[in-house]
């Protein structure tokens, strides 16, 4: 039996464009699968020697249609999908989504629930920034800091597992509360962790902050001016590094953030080094918040008690009482009943402001859910930011922007 072999040319836009180009410029394609791109981002670039003259990001390689999926399931069923947005801080996404729906329902949550949410949000921020700093060091050529940050992140994941049952895809919140109360003896473990964490951060700082090579590679590179940062809709540490004083935890406090004292680090230059400094300081501030939450953890319920048609009652009541059984059945089958209306809520997530625009026509299914992904907005500045830099700066600029494609492409 004879076999025929046919060569397949996978379309390479970069190479094709290069062969058609009449100028001396070279077209270069980076990604979609490339260690620099932290996922599946693709950059089409035009180079003049080593200098980048044009950069066009190509997105969508991780597009799963989360917004379409949301229109086809009940509010609680969508919580696991929020894990997969910014998958480095799933707990913070869970909280942002739950608060959006609760805002539309007009729910007031008990203090304990709010405190638990603040606690997990800040732990998620620490976890996300630890990874962000570690891989940023790696992008700039320093392997070792990554080992320190990953060791600490591993400990956090063990804590997440004890709390939610999952290390990565936590799905911890429900509309009107959280999935379960804090386990016994968990808070002291968190406290032990945050007490030990500053030592590891110091180690990372010793390796990076005044490292000559690191400074040379990051200082003055990828400078984003205040005006540009606002015009391109940057949020989070990237915006603050450019000197814009916007932190939604302070400016529009949600979930009881106004009760805790912390500082908001603001950069002065807006270069890659500033973005690194801001993240380091944010981790230290998050540690302070976690300590305050633990010290003042209120008692009481971890779900809204008056949310009869929204939050499923506790298991032991479902098993013993007819009314609660019916209530649970209705919530599971038809979804939490949310009144009609529209709302927009943004939470200060590790990557920036994660926004949900929710349109409800009543019932248990959203009519439209738009996810405003901070990584999407933060990447939109690349077209303006990258030209004028050397090719070797690409890794550093991308690393300093700290984006996640799962959230960008949705």
């Amino acid at each position, binding site marked *: 039996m004879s076999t025929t072999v046919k060569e397949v040319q996978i379309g390479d836009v970069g190479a094709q464009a290069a062969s058609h180009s009449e100028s001396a410029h070279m077209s270069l394609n980076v990604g979609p699968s490339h260690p620099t791109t932290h996922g599946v981002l693709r950059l089409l670039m035009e180079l003049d020697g080593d200098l980048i003259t044009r950069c066009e990001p190509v*997105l969508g390689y991780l597009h799963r249609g989360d917004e379409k999926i949301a229109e086809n399931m009940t509010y609680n069923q969508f919580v696991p999908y929020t894990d997969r947005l910014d998958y480095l801080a799933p707990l913070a996404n869970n909280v942002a989504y739950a608060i959006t729906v609760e805002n539309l329902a007009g729910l007031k949550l008990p203090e304990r629930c709010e405190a638990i949410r603040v606690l997990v949000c800040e732990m998620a921020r620490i976890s996300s920034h630890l990874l962000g700093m570690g891989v940023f060091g790696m992008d700039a050529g320093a392997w070792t800091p990554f080992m320190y940050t990953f060791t600490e992140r591993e400990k956090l994941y063990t804590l997440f597992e004890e709390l939610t049952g999952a290390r990565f895809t936590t799905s911890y919140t429900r509309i009107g509360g959280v999935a379960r109360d804090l386990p016994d003896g968990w808070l002291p473990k968190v406290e032990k962790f945050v007490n030990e964490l500053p030592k590891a951060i110091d180690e990372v700082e010793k390796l990076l902050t005044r490292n000559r090579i690191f400074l040379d590679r990051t200082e003055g590179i990828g400078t984003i001016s205040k005006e540009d940062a606002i015009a391109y809709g940057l949020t989070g540490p990237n915006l603050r590094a450019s000197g814009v004083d916007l932190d939604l935890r302070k400016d*529009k*406090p949600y979930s009881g953030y106004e009760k805790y004292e912390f500082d908001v680090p603001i950069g002065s230059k807006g270069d890659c080094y500033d973005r690194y*400094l801001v993240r380091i300081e944010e981790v230290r501030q998050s540690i302070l918040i976690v300590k305050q939450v633990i010290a003042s953890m209120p008692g009481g319920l971890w779900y809204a008690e008056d949310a009869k048609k929204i939050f499923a009652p506790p298991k032991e009541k479902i098993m013993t009482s007819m009314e609660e059984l019916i209530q649970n059945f209705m919530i599971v089958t038809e979804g939490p009943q949310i009144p009609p209306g529209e709302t927009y809520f943004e939470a200060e997530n590790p990557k920036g402001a994660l926004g949900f625009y929710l349109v409800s026509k009543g019932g248990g299914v959203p009519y439209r859910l738009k996810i405003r992904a901070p990584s999407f907005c933060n990447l939109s500045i690349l077209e303006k930011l990258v030209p004028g830099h050397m090719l070797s700066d690409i890794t550093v600029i991308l690393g300093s922007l700290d984006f996640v494609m799962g959230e960008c492409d949705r």
Partner: protein
Amino acid sequence: MSRQFATCRISPNPLGSLDSMIDDDFVKSLLDGRDYLSFKHHEDCLTINCLPESLVDFTKHLRDEETFDLLVDLTAVDHGDGAEKRFSVVLHFYSLVHKSYLRIHVLCPDNEAPCIPSVSSVFPAANWHERETFDMFGISFSDHPNLKRILMWDDYPYFPLRKEFPLAGIEVPLPAADVAEVTGADVDPAPMMGGPFVASGNSRMSEAEPRAKDESWTEKSEKPL
């Protein structure tokens, strides 16, 4: 020397989360003399209807005079096939001074070929948001510098977030024609296994269950793979 932070804020914002400056007087002064605007509601944030032809001028005014200089989001809502005006574009602005959001609704005049002016000349942030809205809803933005698909591939023929588009997707050719020629592969709809398992609105759960949708899948005979 390691660099110092320019500023560090210690106390919470004195204004708190209240939209203290976005009151009735503000709304009145904003709407006064602009008959292309109309007040919609002020529930979670101030929401205003705007006619498409004045959108660019009005957003410029918002940015320069009213300090709403951060365009945080731009998207669209499909009101369904039966609606008189089917698509509305929704813009969200944030003001660093007022510490408050502002929402603008723009109804697209044409249901068949919806088109509104692009605000990307005023807010560069709108560039990608408008591309995404075009990609998902098929709403075009006139004067947009680079209006092409952003999440789906360039030749994709449908607009996935329109209400009539099925959740599973529609079969289309593979984007890489040379690979498709050899492998014969195309882009198939997602296997839904009888889902989505949701009883929305007035429908009954028994009708939404996978069993009810696919009669070949019962306790006695398993669903064929």
